[in-house]
């Protein structure tokens, strides 16, 4: 949520574009995609034709018919305007992106080692290019040689440069970003027109927008309702003729347009576009609307412990000395072993030693001092200094080291190790000259507020599972502290995959974040896979969303946006249908009170005249579209609560409200019409 690129809703430039677009969208071929509004357009055309005919014949009541016709057209235009507004907001974003895409030149590496200059747009997947400081990276790819700081602000909006290097999980670079220092060799991974930037532009513009499953289902419902109302209105004429009270086409079309769910019909695609747009504002790119919808449906969130639940790094919290060893002794050794250790853990040990035991940092200037870095083989680090051989590492590594030196780990130390692990900490054993001195307690720091967040998710029916490489004891303790529902300890990529499959077999939808190449299969398997932008190209390809901020916590916001999208649709559908009650009470008495004055009993709003009643209903029906555009674009307010409470709230607001509001609205419009003298 930190930095949203939100714009004012009524940005002048967007509005003026939308005004043009809404006329362009009158093209029946485009209107046909929206059956509800297409019916309105057909109705408008019919009344227009009749209006011209009536004008030539000087039929009385022309003023009323003209107003009805105009407002019917306004109804169509307002719907188009809503869609154009939503698209306009996306386009504005796309324009910014397009600037980054201005064609770049690439130094393509030839097989013989020489380079040739080619336009970036000519690069194909598999090509190797050299990019030096100051140059723009010509296409998406992975660094296969070198390290560089890269300015990715064109895509992420974040001005601070990021480090990209060959190998590991930070090797992906994106076309359009700029190398600030050093030189890298990049293996291009996308073909022209398929780059990340291309996809992103297409996405925010809504060009590739396909209807999502729920949107299709809702569209069917709305089309069905439209047919029902079409039937009700078309067959009303025979009944009216039977009753000797036949109606004009203008009134019948008015009734039809008022009854069919124009409100939601007009705003439906805007809601969908706006949902994508909201994600983009959160710096998340969804590869499909389907993914956004699925996010709202997620049952299980797989969250990586590090970075999501805990702060990225563990910190030393305590020194626990072995029997016969003083804490100072331990702290001293620990500090010495960590002085050259530039890892955050290492630094935190130095700081703890300084703060708790007043041990100042010392220069290990002496040439005898020999730093032993962590290696995957020994899984220890340490220092050889002044004849002291200090090692620190995980308990099993130190145990092996001790037994090599025909020593052993005292029982007490063993016990300490277990206590720390059970409490969710990471024990780091320190040994000097083959003797265990004690344990450093490295602690995971759970992010503030995360527990409340999980409680909200639980209320919404979403289960959280923490994924960690820690041992089960440690994992359990952190899981408890963070309030997650479950955890997967010592997780391998396969474990993760199995868990996803198991959840899915139970019919659940699973969301996860990931960055590494080994996350790719799980990202692909999950229903919502959010790849970190800093991650590898493979991860980004496998997931269906990319978080440009590379913030794993973002998953929670993505879920909320997904839910908000569905809720907005549901609420406006309810509102739209509920509105019909008042419209009936406005139009039916107006239609027949002329022939049967007793039917004025149904005119409970006491609308002035039949003409003003029909007109008021039509005007209300049109204006409510405009009035709800902001709601459609922003989405209905989301509050984390259980479904029952949420439904009660939304039913009250949009269902009951939807019944009441038009009674008031139509009455007010009727009064205005009477005052102005329109009918």
């Amino acid at each position, binding site marked *: 949520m930190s930095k949203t690129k939100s714009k004012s809703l009524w940005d002048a430039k967007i509005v003026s574009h939308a005004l043009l677009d809404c006329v362009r969208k009158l093209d029946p071929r485009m209107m046909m995609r929206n059956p509800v509004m297409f019916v309105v357009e057909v109705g408008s055309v019919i009344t227009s034709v009749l209006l011209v005919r009536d004008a030539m014949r000087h039929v009385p009541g022309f003023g009323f018919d003209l107003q009805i016709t105009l407002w019917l057209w306004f109804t169509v235009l307002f719907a188009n305007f809503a869609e154009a507004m939503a698209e306009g907001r996306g386009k504005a974003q796309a324009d910014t992106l397009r600037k980054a895409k201005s064609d770049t030149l690439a130094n393509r590496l030839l097989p013989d080692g020489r380079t040739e200059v080619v336009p970036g747009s000519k690069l194909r997947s598999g090509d190797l290019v050299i990019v030096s400081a100051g140059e723009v990276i010509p296409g998406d790819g992975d660094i296969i040689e070198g390290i560089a700081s890269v300015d990715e602000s064109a895509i992420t909006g974040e001005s601070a440069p990021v480090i990209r290097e060959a190998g590991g999980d930070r090797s992906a670079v994106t076309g359009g970003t700029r190398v600030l220092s050093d030189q890298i060799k990049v293996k291009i991974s996308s073909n022209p027109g398929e780059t990340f930037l291309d996809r992103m532009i297409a996405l925010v513009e809504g060009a590739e927008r396909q209807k999502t499953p729920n949107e299709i289902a809702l569209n069917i*419902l709305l089309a069905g309702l439209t047919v029902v109302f079409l039937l009700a209105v078309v067959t*009303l004429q025979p009944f009216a003729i*039977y009753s000797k009270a036949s109606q004009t086409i203008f009134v019948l079309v008015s009734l039809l347009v008022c009854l069919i769910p124009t409100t939601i019909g007009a705003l439906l695609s805007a809601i969908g576009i706006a949902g994508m747009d909201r994600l983009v504002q959160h710096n998340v790119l969804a590869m499909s609307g389907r993914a956004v919808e699925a996010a709202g449906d997620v049952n299980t969130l797989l969250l990586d412990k590090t970075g999501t639940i805990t702060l990225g790094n563990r910190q030393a919290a305590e020194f626990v000395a072995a029997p016969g060893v003083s804490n100072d002794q331990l702290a001293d050794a620990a500090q010495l072993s960590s002085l050259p250790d530039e890892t955050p853990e290492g630094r935190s040990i130095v700081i703890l030693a300084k703060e708790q035991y007043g041990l100042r940092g010392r220069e290990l200037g002496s040439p005898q001092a020999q730093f032993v870095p962590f290696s995957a083989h020994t899984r220890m680090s340490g220092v050889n200094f002044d004849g002291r051989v200090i090692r620190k590492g995980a308990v099993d590594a130190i145990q092996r080291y001790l037994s090599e030196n025909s020593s052993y780990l005292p029982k007490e130390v063993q016990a300490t190790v277990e206590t720390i692990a059970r409490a969710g900490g990471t024990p780091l054993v320190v040994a000097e000259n083959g003797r265990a001195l004690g344990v450093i307690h490295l602690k995971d720091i759970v992010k503030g507020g995360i527990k409340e967040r999980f409680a909200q998710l639980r209320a919404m029916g979403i289960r959280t599972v923490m994924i960690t490489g820690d041992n089960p004891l440690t994992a359990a303790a952190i899981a408890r502290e963070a309030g997650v529902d479950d955890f997967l300890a010592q997780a391998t990529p396969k474990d993760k995959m199995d868990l996803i499959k198991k959840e899915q077999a139970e019919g659940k939808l699973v969301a996860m974040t990931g960055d590494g190449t080994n996350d790719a299969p799980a990202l692909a398997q999950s229903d919502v896979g959010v790849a970190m932008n800093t991650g590898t190209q493979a991860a980004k390809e496998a997931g269906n969303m990319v978080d440009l901020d590379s913030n794993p916590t973002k998953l929670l916001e993505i879920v909320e946006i997904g839910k908000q999208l569905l809720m907005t649709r549901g609420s406006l*559908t309810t509102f739209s249908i509920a509105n019909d009650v008042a419209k009936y009470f406005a139009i039916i008495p107006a239609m027949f009170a002329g022939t049967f004055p*007793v039917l004025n009993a149904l005119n409970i709003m006491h609308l002035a005249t039949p003409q003003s009643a029909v007109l008021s209903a039509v005007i209300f029906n049109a204006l409510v579209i405009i009035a709800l555009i902001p709601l459609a674009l922003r989405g209905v307010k989301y509050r984390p609560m259980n479904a029952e409470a949420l439904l009660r709230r939304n039913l009250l607001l949009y269902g009951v409200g939807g019944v009441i509001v038009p009674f008031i609205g139509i009455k007010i419009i009727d009064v205005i019409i009477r005052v102005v003298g329109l009918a």
Partner: protein
Amino acid sequence: MTFNGWFQILLYFAVILLLTKPMGVFMAKVFNRERTWLDGVMRPLERLLYRLTKIDEEREMSWKEYAVSMLLFSAVSMLVLYLLQRAQQWLPLNPQKFSGVAPDLAFNTAASFTTNTNWQFYSGEQVMSYLTQMAGLAYHNFASAAVGMALAVAFIRGIARKEAKAIGNFWVDTTRAILWILVPLSIVSSIVLISQGVIQNNKPYTTVKLVEPQQVPRAGQDGKPVVGPDGKPVMDTVTEQTIANGPIASQEAIKELGTNGGGFLNANSAHPFENPTPFSNFFEMVLIFLIPAGFTYTLGRMTNSQAHGWAVFAAMAILFFAGVTTAYWAEARGNPLLTATDQRASTMQPGGNMEGKEVRFGIANSALFATITTDASCGAVNGFHDSYTPLGGMVPLANIMLGEIVFGGVGAGMYGMLIFVVLSVFIAGLMVGRTPEYLGKKIEAYDVKMAMLYVLIFPLAILVLSGISSLTSSGLAALGNSGPHGLTEILYAFTSGTGNNGSAFGGLGPNRWYNLSMGFTMLVGRFLMIIPMLAIAGNLAQKKSVPPSPGTFPVTTPLFTGLVVGVIIIMGALTFFPALSLGPILEHLLAGAGKTF
């Protein structure tokens, strides 16, 4: 409205409430093929039946095969009923020597009874031989009810099963419905009804000598009184009354139990031979709701969500009370145009609008019966809806328009209600921000499409055919009343036909247009609606089931009940309000203003 009147209504509801669980449990056992105490008698009979008809009881069917089997059975048995009517003059058990039924009427009646509608464009005691009544009409009362129950069970299985291809065996479900439920209950019910005075014999009609011979004006060929040379009407002396007979009780039982409603006699359950006492009336009303109410419990049991079953029951109960309250209020108020009469309730009389009603039932029981018979798709009547007050008559009409889902027809009410539940859940699901789920099954585009098709066919048939009838001379010629009431008669006919109810605003008489169009719309209202319903069942069955979580909208709470009621009323009202406003609503307002037609 009187205290006693309300007491009877509440007593009735209490009895239904008490019977719901035992009936529901029994039906669940029967359809799950679990052991019941009737197995000793019925199991051998069942096996014999399967052997004779080449049914493999272990083989389950996809929804498509289920639908095809159902259609084949309905087609064959409908054809048999048609032929039986056409040939009855050559067949036995025809003591009154009735001739064969005319082709268009025979088609109408065959369609009517095959579809569980029991719309009757004939007067039973004047047209149908005992054989036609027993082996044709009463037979279909069993068959169409059993088919309805089978379909509802298939639908429930669709919800309950996970990743399954099959939804049961149509023949087995139908057979078990007949042998375990319909036959035993019919036998017991027949005896109860006979004990109250419903007749049961195969005798020719009885002629009796009147206590007081009557002078009646002679009617000429044109139906008008013949005038003698002295200018006075010619009088005939009538000394006899002919009394109809027949195997009525055996048909009466299944007529109510199977929510069929087709009377043996023209006056249906208003006739003292079909419904002789207040208790027989009460008993018949209980039979109408017995199976449909039980199905709510069966639903809960088969889907392992008893609370959901009760939530559905509650929704039905709310709509039931809304209907009966309106009808009772309207009928008890009486007819404002009959100013010179005493319509007030007192200890001496129930008062109210007594045209078309029987004294032994009074207003409360007549309003209650009209509500029940149209809540369910029964269509039996103990008072004639055409003569009800405009609003009192609108209640049965509106009940059918809502889809007969207030307990509803046997089976048909259940699956009709569940379609509305699916739609409610869809809208509710969106409002809570999830892809809608119903008892763990995701409701997706296909389900919505089929549900909308189901919802759409109904008004399509009703409104289009009513529209045509209200403009054409053959449509208007058959009307028994004019003005808004005439429009209501048309609307009621097609609503009753499409809804497979069978009750009528009986002033509308038969002619070729109505025989054919009604026959057509009854078939549409049954079979065209069943197919999308079964498609949903088949589609739901093959889905995975998502375990419920706090994020899924619970279908067991009062909020759910309220939502379903709201969706049903809004859908029904929005579809039919314009038509109703020119029919009963207009008539009500005009009657208040003293206008007659």
